[in-house]
């Protein structure tokens, strides 16, 4: 429908609003139908229109929808930018439901590992407290807990989880499982192993009649952390085997799958099983080929095992592909450089250094 509109002919505000309404209904449709192919021209035309006219209420909606769309596509930078634009217009229109968009920005910050920023944004919600439904308050406190946990402030994280739980008595088990899992993870970090095991058991009890294999695996692997600290290899193997049995049942779309493979790689590395370490790191990399953390783990592993063949293959792949951000991390750069020097690839080492000095990496 939009293709028929000549944007140059829009002279009245009412006409511009009508066009934006069409955009809104189209974007809603795309999100509901999981149809995310979007042309740059489509967005550029919309951006121009929004810059020319001052209908803030519509901007609140359309920017939020664009944020949602890019969130689904996985473009976190654009997701964050559009949510921020929506929030700016929220402030102009003085709406009382801005807690939802602020929570979306908080989530966006967590996804991009900007945990301090996530907390700063969620602080903006506190003055709006009276307008927020209880089940939503639970979500907000949970996201704050997750941010504190990632910042290694475990006691603050536990306080936030307790608040989340206090608002969550009406919440269904889907969210409660996540609260408990995060709580148990914090207990481990505080070396409160008894509390951690009790809490994990509560989640497993909730999961008993559900087919959430990915969550079960994530919990088993987190329980392994406790036995790793005690160096109880028998228990570690027991729980790892439980995970391996459940693996084929996990959906490829699962949020947890990448982390399950990565953690299996970590545990097999701890158990000094090199074949399975490599296998699971590679499986994690298949799911997320640009993940700097996974690439670093695999490169570390090859190095420690003096597996030059593996390290060379991975290095070449990094240098020839679009994964150059991996080299921005100095440790990875140093590893590849030392690999070349160790094997007398002096010319390659020089090229690598020159490119680094020129700022190409």
């Amino acid at each position: 429908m939009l293709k028929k509109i000549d944007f140059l002919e829009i002279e009245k505000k009412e006409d511009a609003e009508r066009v934006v309404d069409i955009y809104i209904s189209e974007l809603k449709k795309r999100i509901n139908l999981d149809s995310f192919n979007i042309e740059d021209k489509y967005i550029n035309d919309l951006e121009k229109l929004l810059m020319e006219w001052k209908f803030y209420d519509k901007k609140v909606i359309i920017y939020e929808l664009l944020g949602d769309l890019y969130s689904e596509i996985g473009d976190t930078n654009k997701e964050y930018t559009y949510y921020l634009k929506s929030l700016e217009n929220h402030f102009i229109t003085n709406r009382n439901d801005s807690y939802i968009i602020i929570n979306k920005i908080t989530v966006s910050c967590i996804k991009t590992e900007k945990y301090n920023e996530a907390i700063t944004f969620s602080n903006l919600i506190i003055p709006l407290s009276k307008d927020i439904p209880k089940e939503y308050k639970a979500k907000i406190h949970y996201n704050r807990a997750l941010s504190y946990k990632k910042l290694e402030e475990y006691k603050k994280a536990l306080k936030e989880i307790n608040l989340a739980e206090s608002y969550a008595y009406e919440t269904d088990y889907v969210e409660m499982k996540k609260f408990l899992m995060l709580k148990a993870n914090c207990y481990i970090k505080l070396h409160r192993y008894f509390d951690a095991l009790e809490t994990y058991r509560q989640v497993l009890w909730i999961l008993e009649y559900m087919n959430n294999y990915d969550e079960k695996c994530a919990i088993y692997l987190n329980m392994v952390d406790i036995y790793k600290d005690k160096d109880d290899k028998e228990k570690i193997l027991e729980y790892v085997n439980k995970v391996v049995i459940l693996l084929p049942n996990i959906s490829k779309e699962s949020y947890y799958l990448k982390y399950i493979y990565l953690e299996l790689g970590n545990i097999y590395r701890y158990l000094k099983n090199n074949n399975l370490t490599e296998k699971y790191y590679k499986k994690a990399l298949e799911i997320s080929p640009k993940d700097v953390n996974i690439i670093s783990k695999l490169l570390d592993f090859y190095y420690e095992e003096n597996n030059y063949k593996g390290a060379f293959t991975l290095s070449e792949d990094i240098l020839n592909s679009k994964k150059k951000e991996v080299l921005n991390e100095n440790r990875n750069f140093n590893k590849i450089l030392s690999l070349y020097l160790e094997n007398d690839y002096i010319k390659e080492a020089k090229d690598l250094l020159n490119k680094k000095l020129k700022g190409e990496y």
Partner: protein
Amino acid sequence: MKKIGKFLSMILVIGFLSISIFTPLQIDPPPLKNILEHSIIDQ
């Protein structure tokens, strides 16, 4: 030249191995946002 190369690579290897001590990852649940919870979408 080869000796310098070997020396440099030793320094680099010691440098990163000292940082790459085994640390467990721990799997945290994802942040909570329901994509269809638009503040205004159904109004």
